[in-house]
Every structure is written in structure tokens, then in C-alpha cells.
């Protein structure tokens, strides 16, 4: 009896403190929004731009830090300006999209380093945005994550049909009269906002993992975009709870523990997934009557 209650206490102890609960709440909200936007990132092969926007936001974080402005606002402005710049440069110059990304995001990141290098003394606060400091998340951070995160989710729900169609087949969407350019810019802006609210909780360096890993894991399991979002969100929440708990017990950085938990879940799914896992059984391809004689499966 006492062994059971000991175990229960061992599992629940970490959650007794208010700052742990605050951290968990922040991570859970961030991982849900990241999984939803990350589904677009994964299916459209946008991981590089996700990483780029996170790094570019550092320029804004540093500028806001030095000028004493709002750090989130600085990050958002830098990320959104960089994403607009990437689309603009690649369209006008004829350079490849990933080339434009490579040029602009490193530029914005370098600007951040330049600004910080002029600062003397105490810049630890700044590094909480680079590597994440979820235990330092305060009440105002939580409110911001909740409000911006909810806004992102509501916009995705309202424009889901348009975002799906534009992501899947932009030419056909344009022919059907949908505002394709607005949707593509809008998608980048929503990804930028998602990164901004993740900065404090997971940090610039690791945020791309929160965008990509849960959604990628989900894509191994389910085959429709909205299901990838839902399953990805579940995996993100699970990673947050387990990772934060492990970081408390092992006294390691929370953001790294959460990301590594998600990575382990991905690898396990990759190995065991019934659909595409390398150890799972592949579904045998059985041709039905209706399928015969149409060129064979591809």
C-alpha cells in the first residue's frame, strides 16, 4: 500500500509547485499550436523555412532587448519581415526559394549577434530565448501564449478549406478563384507567430523540432491533414508532460528533454508503425475488381 502511494507521490510530486504547472501549461499550449502549424510545415516540406524564421527572430529579440521594447513584438516583427523578404526576393530575383531563405535568415541572425556583441554584462535573459527557459515562463507569458495561440488556431479553423487547397494544389486553387497569394503569405505569418510564442518555452534553436517532430510522427500513423494535426498535438502534449517530468527528476534542461522525448517517440513510431514502420507489416496490396487494368499501382 505504501509502495503504491510512494509511487504516486513520486509521479505527482513535481507537479505540486506552481512554476512546474505554469511550465507544463506553457509547453502544452505551445506544443498543440506547433503541431497544427507543423502539419503544414511537414506536408509542404517547409522545415528549413521554419528553422530560418526561428533564427531570424533572434535579430528582433536582440534589438528589442537592447532598446527595451517588447521582446515578443520584436521577434514577431523580425520573423514576419524575414518571411515576406524571402518570398519577395525569391520571386523578383529568380533565385531558388531555399537560397533566399539561406541568405536572409542568417543575415537577420547575424544582426542579432552584432547587436548583442555591443552589450556588456548581463545577457542571460537573452539566452533564455535562444535555448528556451520554460521554468522562467511568467503569468504574462502564459497570457500571450494563450491569446496568440488561440488566434492562430481559430484562423486555421476558419480558413482550413482554403489553406488545405492552396497547400495541396495552388494552381487549381487560383483557377477556382481562391486568394492563393494571401493564403501563402498568411501561412508563413501564422508559422512566424507560432515560433514567436514558442521562443520562451523551447527556444530558437529547438523550436523547429516542436514544429516538425510531432507532425512527422503523426504522418507515419495517419493519412489526412486534420488527423495529422490532431495526432501531432497529442504527441506534442505527451512529449511535454514526459519531458518536463524527466527534466525535473534528472535536473536537465526542460526544452531539450521535451524535444528528445518527441524524438524518441518518433523513432519508436518509425520502427513500429503498422503502416510505414520498418519492423511493422506492410499492408498487402490487394487489387480489387475496380482497380484491375488501370496501369497498376504506383
Amino acid at each position: 500500500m505504501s509502495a503504491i502511494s510512494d509511487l504516486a507521490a513520486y509521479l505527482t510530486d513535481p507537479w505540486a509547485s506552481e512554476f512546474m504547472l505554469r511550465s507544463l501549461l506553457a509547453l502544452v499550449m505551445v506544443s498543440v499550436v506547433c503541431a497544427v502549424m507543423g502539419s503544414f510545415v511537414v506536408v509542404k516540406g517547409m522545415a528549413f523555412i521554419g528553422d530560418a524564421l526561428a533564427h531570424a527572430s533572434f535579430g528582433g529579440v536582440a534589438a528589442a532587448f537592447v532598446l527595451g521594447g517588447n521582446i515578443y513584438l520584436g521577434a514577431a516583427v523580425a520573423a514576419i519581415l524575414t518571411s515576406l523578404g524571402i518570398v519577395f526576393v525569391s520571386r523578383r530575383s529568380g533565385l531558388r526559394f531555399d537560397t533566399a531563405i539561406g541568405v536572409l535568415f542568417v543575415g537577420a541572425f547575424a544582426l542579432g549577434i552584432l547587436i548583442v556583441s555591443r552589450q556588456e554584462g548581463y545577457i542571460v535573459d537573452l539566452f533564455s530565448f535562444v535555448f528556451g527557459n520554460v521554468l522562467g515562463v511568467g503569468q504574462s507569458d502564459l497570457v500571450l501564449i494563450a491569446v496568440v495561440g488561440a488566434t492562430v488556431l481559430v484562423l486555421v479553423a476558419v480558413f482550413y478549406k482554403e489553406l488545405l487547397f492552396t497547400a495541396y494544389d495552388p494552381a487549381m486553387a487560383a483557377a477556382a478563384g481562391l486568394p492563393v497569394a494571401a493564403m501563402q503569405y498568411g501561412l508563413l505569418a501564422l508559422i512566424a507567430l507560432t515560433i514567436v510564442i514558442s521562443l520562451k518555452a523551447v527556444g530558437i534553436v529547438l523550436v523547429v523540432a516542436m514544429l516538425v517532430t510531432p507532425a512527422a510522427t503523426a504522418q507515419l500513423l495517419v493519412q489526412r491533414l486534420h488527423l495529422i494535426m490532431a495526432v501531432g498535438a497529442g504527441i506534442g502534449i505527451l512529449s511535454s508532460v514526459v519531458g518536463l517530468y524527466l527534466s525535473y527528476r534528472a535536473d536537465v534542461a526542460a526544452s531539450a528533454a521535451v524535444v528528445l522525448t518527441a524524438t524518441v517517440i518518433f523513432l519508436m513510431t518509425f520502427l513500429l508503425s503498422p503502416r510505414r514502420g520498418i519492423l511493422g507489416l506492410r499492408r498487402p496490396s490487394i487489387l480489387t475488381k475496380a482497380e484491375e487494368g488501370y496501369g497498376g499501382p504506383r
Partner: protein
Amino acid sequence: MARVDAGQQDTEDGGLRPAIEVSDLWAGYNGQAALEGVTLAIEEGCLAGLVGPNGSGKSTLLRVILGLHRPWRGEVRLFGQKVDRARRLLGYMPQVELVDWAFPVSVFDVVMMGRYGRLGLLRSPIRRDREAVWRCLEQVGMTDLARRQIGELSAGQQRRVLFARTMAQEPRILLLDEPFTGLDATAQHDLLNLFNDVRAAGKTLLVATHDLSCVATAFDHAACLNRKIIAFGEPRTIFTEQVLNATFQTHLLLVNVEGKTYVSYQ
């Protein structure tokens, strides 16, 4: 079926305007002309082929008709209306290479996208839309596979899904870009049957293709395009060695064996 010649635009006989009317169209990319003064009129209820080699402007012409590419000069009218007002009349089937088959959507989802243009912003599909999707899936014989992810289909099935999506737009005019590419003879035949059904229902089809034999045997009209319209009319009449050589230039080999001309497209 009345013969329609390139350039003929008169409606003096009091008849209806042609389904597709292209007049003196110039268009291109980065200063490089892809279409040079294209004039074309296609009657309602016609299955018309648009043939020409790669880079002859077939896709550009379709994109201009769809309103996806702004021409330098000239205009397109659909039943006498400008394109931006008549977008609802059009259904479009893109080249299969341009479709992302790994995308996580089901067959049903893809066909439903054909309804999105009609629905407009912020409106969700209603029962009528779902019924229309099922009807289109039934028409192409794909109801059993409606829940499949699109990448799990065979080439012929993928083509039929794209055609079902085009039909879900409830178009009067269908523009199809290289629908036969990569299909075996059976799948090609099935697709052609679908085209004939749709034409029998009074719709107009303009099909960009370089499958000359298919156009020659099954289409009402053909337009030979190589930046300019080289010839327009019944395939039987216009598919002469002279016209085809002018259209395909070095891309085409005409072989004369025992009084019959065999065409090989490179």
C-alpha cells in the same frame, strides 16, 4: 457538327457565341513570347484537342484561359463573357506531374476541392456538396476507393480522381492539361469514354495533349499550336504532313509505309 475555322468569330447568323473564343492573344514569360497572335474559336459541345510539342504554348494558352496568366495583348471570352466573370464556367485538370501525390488527403477530399471555388470563403461544404462529390466519384467509378490516400492509387485511378474533381466544379467548359500522359491503352480508353460522356451532356472540352493518334481518332476538332495556330479544324483534314511538320518541326518523325503515314513523336 459545323466546321469552325481559326479566326472566325462572327455571330452574324444569330447563333450562340462559341464556348471558347480567343482573339489575337499574345503572352509570354520574362519578355519571351510563348503565344504569338493566337486566334481560336471552339463551339459548345465540342471535344477539341490542342496539340503541339513541349514549349509550344499549350499550357500557357490554358493558363491564360483560366485567368492564371495575364496576356500581353488580346482577350479570351467564354460564351461571350470575359474570363474573370465566367470563372465558374470553367473546370480545370492540371498536369499529373504538378500534383503532390504524397499529400495527406483522401480521394474524397480531393474531389471536394472541386467544390471550394463555388463555396467561396468561410463557407463549409454542405450536404449538396457532399452529394455532388459522390455523384462525380460514381461517374468515374471510384466510390469504393473514396477513403484512400491519393498516393495509394494506380496511375489510371489518379487520373480519374482528377477528372472527378474537374466535374465537381460543375463546369460547362473543361480544360485538361496532358490527361493521357503515362497511361496504358486501357486507362486511356476509359478516360476517353469519360470525355465522350461529358461531351454527350453538352459540355465543351479542350484537351492539351501530344497524343496525335488519340486526337485523330476520337476528337471533333484539333488546333495545331506552335506559338501560333498552324491549323485548326477536323483532325482528319488538318493532320497533313505539312501541318504536322510545321507544328512539331524536329520533334516529329513521319514515316510513310505502304501508303499510310505513321507518326512518331519524340
